[in-house]
């Protein structure tokens, strides 16, 4: 991946909640067209890191930059417009709107803004991509769990973001859905999308991530090619706990 240029880069990114340091001095880069897994045990600061990148939370220190421009000082909506789009750990759809309108929200206001027929056509393309074109006029309450996740994915894809942040997008799916979900993310990877994947599901991490950054207690404990990282004794120790190792 070293032949690709860096798109997203964290330098000393830190988040304090009072006395608690949730993310401590975190450095890593995401290269163009790369799928980077951000993994680690519960409470290790993965989701907080995603919240810092997307601007849901302000950083307490350090910088985050997109294409060498610092974005960590910007509000969330401007970070989205610069080209970082995210899904939410607990799916968040707009309950009063149809699937089509939900995705339209990303098309009208996202990184690449579209309006009118152009936006409508692009929304339909994205719904086809995630396999929901037949449910365009359904309401979120009528959808299965994985379909709500597909809507959210289409909503972030539709703005043509430079970086996609997927926050446990595969969590909570049953085995069949998980397979569908993995192949959908693989399709995005094959399309050359740049993705940061916060994930727990090991099968997904193995089959999707080019590289992984492993966090534990707010710090990075390992980084590298997925297979190497997952066999790293320190990573195994972090996952299993100090006493069991």
């Amino acid at each position, binding site marked *: 991946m070293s032949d690709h240029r860096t798109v997203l880069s964290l330098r000393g990114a830190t988040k304090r909640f009072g006395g608690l340091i949730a993310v401590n001095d975190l450095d890593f880069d995401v290269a163009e067209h790369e799928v980077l897994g951000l993994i680690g045990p519960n409470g290790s600061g993965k989701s907080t890191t995603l919240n810092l990148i997307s601007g849901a939370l302000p950083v307490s220190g350090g910088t985050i930059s997109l294409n060498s421009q610092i974005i960590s000082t910007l509000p969330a909506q401007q970070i989205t417009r610069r080209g970082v789009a995210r899904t939410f750990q607990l799916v968040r759809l707009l309950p009063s709107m149809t699937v089509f309108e939900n995705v339209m*929200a990303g098309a009208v206001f996202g990184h690449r803004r579209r309006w009118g027929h152009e936006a409508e056509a692009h929304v339909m393309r994205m719904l086809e991509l995630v396999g929901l074109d037949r449910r365009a006029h359904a309401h979120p309450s009528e959808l299965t769990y994985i379909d709500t996740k597909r809507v959210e994915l289409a909503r972030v894809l539709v703005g043509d973001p430079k970086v996609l942040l997927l926050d446990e997008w595969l969590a909570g799916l049953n085995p069949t859905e998980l397979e569908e979900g993995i192949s959908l993310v693989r399709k995005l990877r094959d399309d050359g999308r740049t993705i940061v994947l916060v994930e727990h599901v090991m099968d997904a991490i193995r089959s999707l991530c080019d590289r992984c950054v492993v966090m534990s207690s707010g710090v990075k404990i390992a980084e590298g090619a997925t297979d190497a990282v997952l066999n790293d004794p320190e990573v195994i120790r972090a996952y299993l706990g100090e006493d069991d190792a």
Partner: protein
Amino acid sequence: MNKSTYSDVLIGVVLLALAACLPWVVGDFAVTLAVNIAMFTVLATSWALFSGPTHYISLATAAFFGLGTYTAGIGLDYLPFWVLIPLAGVFGAVMAGLIGLATLRLSGVYFVIFTLGLAEMTRQVITYIQNATGQKGILISIWFMETTFYWMLVGLAAVIFLVGWLIGRSRLGFALRIIGDDEEVARHSGINTALSKVLLFMIPGAVAAMTGAMMAPRYGYIEPLIAFTPMLSFQVVIMALLGGTGRLWGPIVGVIPFSILWELISASFPNQTTLLLGLCFLAIVYLLPNGFVGLLLKIRARVSQGEGF
């Protein structure tokens, strides 16, 4: 889709034209009632433009209305009446913009309390100033026929319906609906939520101030309790909710029956109006949480479902 929205506009134009002809058909008492209906149509429709999609309940209508009334009352010594109406609109928009900047970052509940407090505070401040200067109220030196008030209001209503229709088709209107559903999603979709809310909140602010300015000559004599009556803010909310805020024409469906009902209540029970207003509010919230519009859409959905089976 476009065809039906343009036919909506045509229907709107025809209905407004018919409404404008009303004074030639009905008697004096009916025109007085029609002025009230037109006034609340203007206030409730513009209120719903902002509060409908965002679910931020504003109780500041009286503050803007009073601001407009006083703009006309004080300004008549210096400027012609027709200049004072748009001027009041500018003042109302600026005041709404300032309130918006100060409060719209807060969540809904704080916004309700703040707007209520603000309206009361404005009234108290004006009262204080008047007491300090030894002035009691302001006499309005001009006078109009009831029909003139009515036509001014119908004209303003036409403008509001046009603006509301345009907003409904715009990015701003769509942004407001997204904000009302989930503000967090709105932000992460790339919407400047604070700016969108402040911009749209300026519309009911401007409209209520313009309405206040238009109505000043009708009062003849204005003092804080008339211009800034808190009852007005509540009436607007109740009427808009009764009609339903899901559609542009929703509030007017609440305004017409409620204005007539109100006329009866204040004629028959002049001392219990506040109590009865409260009861009406409770009844509407319990029985018609989405107003007549919500009821209509529910019935329509049921009918079309019935056809499907």
